[in-house]
């Protein structure tokens, strides 16, 4: 059974059908990428899966649990973590604090316990710290441990957000445009980390991405979206060469010809 299965998912905002019947399955242990032109509905699908929006139709199931009506704060405990297109870090905290919050879903502490700093609270904090240190080590962020997030360069902030998602010990990781705003070197490193996360941490990864070389490098399977529906699904090479996908990105065959320089 697939780890994540999405069937006939649809949502509308006012009159706009942002997602109009999207279906795909993500198998455990694979890296599955969603591509498509801007406005295709890729981030909206993410927001549906992480329950920021509620679908108007369709079903989602994760690890056997029906996600369609789950409250948004439950998905972390189920094993889903995500990063955001526009970085949503906790700006007034340090990198370490951000990562410690990442582990929240697995903590066992109560308000009264926290007020007296009980043993359960201490244990939660210790576990959170261990998860944070593992993430810091994997992504080589140790020297930023106590730095305030607000002053860090953009590339580092993106990696911190990834680290924070890893602290939630997810089974499924949703990465929204992990390479946007990164230069070639940083994109390279990001590709390596995505592969390492799949291989070493056994995390399934669902990615939204525009950078086709990154897509080809990391993806096991790719789905191309356009105007809220799936155009093609297969390996990166298959989808890239699919005529419908080419048309969605570049326009009809004749237009493509007109773009070619005369011989």
């Amino acid at each position, binding site marked *: 059974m697939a780890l994540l299965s999405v069937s006939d998912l649809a949502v509308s905002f006012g009159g706009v059908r942002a997602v109009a019947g999207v279906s795909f399955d993500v198998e455990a242990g694979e890296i599955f990428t969603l591509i498509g032109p801007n406005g295709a509905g890729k*981030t909206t699908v993410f*927001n549906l899966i992480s329950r920021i929006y509620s679908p108007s139709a369709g079903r989602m199931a994760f690890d056997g649990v029906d996600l369609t009506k789950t409250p948004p704060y439950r998905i972390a405990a189920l094993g889903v973590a995500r990063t955001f297109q526009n970085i949503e870090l906790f700006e007034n905290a340090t990198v370490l604090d951000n990562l410690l919050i990442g582990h929240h879903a697995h903590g066992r502490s109560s308000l009264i316990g926290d007020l007296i700093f009980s043993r359960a609270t201490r244990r939660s904090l210790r576990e959170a710290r261990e998860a944070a240190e593992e993430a810091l080590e994997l992504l080589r962020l140790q020297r930023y441990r106590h730095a305030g997030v607000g002053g860090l360069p953009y590339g580092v902030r993106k990696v911190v957000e990834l680290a924070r998602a890893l602290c939630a010990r997810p089974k499924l990781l949703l990465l929204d445009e992990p390479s946007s705003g990164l230069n070639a070197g940083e994109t390279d490193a990001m590709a390596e980390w995505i592969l390492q996360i799949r291989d070493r941490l056994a995390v399934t990864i669902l990615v939204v991405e525009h950078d086709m070389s990154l897509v080809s490098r990391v993806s096991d399977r790719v789905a191309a979206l356009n105007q809220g529906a799936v155009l093609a699904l297969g390996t990166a090479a298959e989808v890239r060469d699919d005529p419908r996908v080419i048309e969605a990105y570049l326009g009809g065959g004749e237009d493509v010809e007109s773009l070619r320089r005369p011989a």
Partner: protein
Amino acid sequence: MELAQQVLSGLAQGCVYGLIALGFVLIYKATEAVNFAQGEMLMLGAFGCLALMRFAGLPFAVAAVLAVAGMGALGALVERVALRPLLGQPQFAVVMLTIGLGYVARGLVSMIPDIGPETNALDTPYKGLALRAFGLVVSADHLAIVATTLALCASLYLLFKYTRIGVAMQAASQNQLAAHYMGIPVKRLNGLAWALSGAVAGCAGILIAPIVFVHMNMGNIGLKAFPAAVVGGFGSMPGAIVGGVVVGVVESLAGFYLPEGFKDIAAYVVLLAMLVVKPTGLFGETLRKKV
């Protein structure tokens, strides 16, 4: 008849609330700043008119116009000096700043010799007059309030709909960055919004002076802008007037039909009810963040 009389006086009071809320919404729409000093701007307008009449011997009409213009200038000055440095900071900072400005305004006014610490009467030309029709009595003060409110609303409507500046202000209030790219001087228009708001507040102050008298705490009525703006919808100028009238009428009826004390909290009960039922107000719109 009693009911109609209550409704009528509630209407007039509501127009005052609406005017205060209008100035408030003008600022909010343009700069998303919540101005807790709106009531104090009202008070300054009233004191300005009083001072010009008392110390410079000017007739009411001249003093009133000058006071309103002065308040407009003060509004623009406040925006330039106090608000612009706060660009980019959370809304809370602006709230605290305006609270501070209100305190300072109240304190400084109390230091004006002769009139500051006292409760003063404003000599309007229509003082004491009243209109009697259909068994109802409407005082000239109330009539002036309603008439001025209608006139101001009409002028602002024309300004925003048909003049270039008005359209530019609307654009800036909806999307600052896009307006900036279009060559609209956003910061200057923010100043204009504050100036208009100050002028409207000044008008309101002069209009209610005959009823509540001119004293340093007369700005407390400014708090009623909040129920009015919440009922009408924070970003909506017609909403501000409608909200103010609703609050005024409810208050008037509460004072008449309900036991003592309910009149003071009626406005806030209406506010809370609105937040439960439709937080965005009668004319407001729901907006959602895109992640």
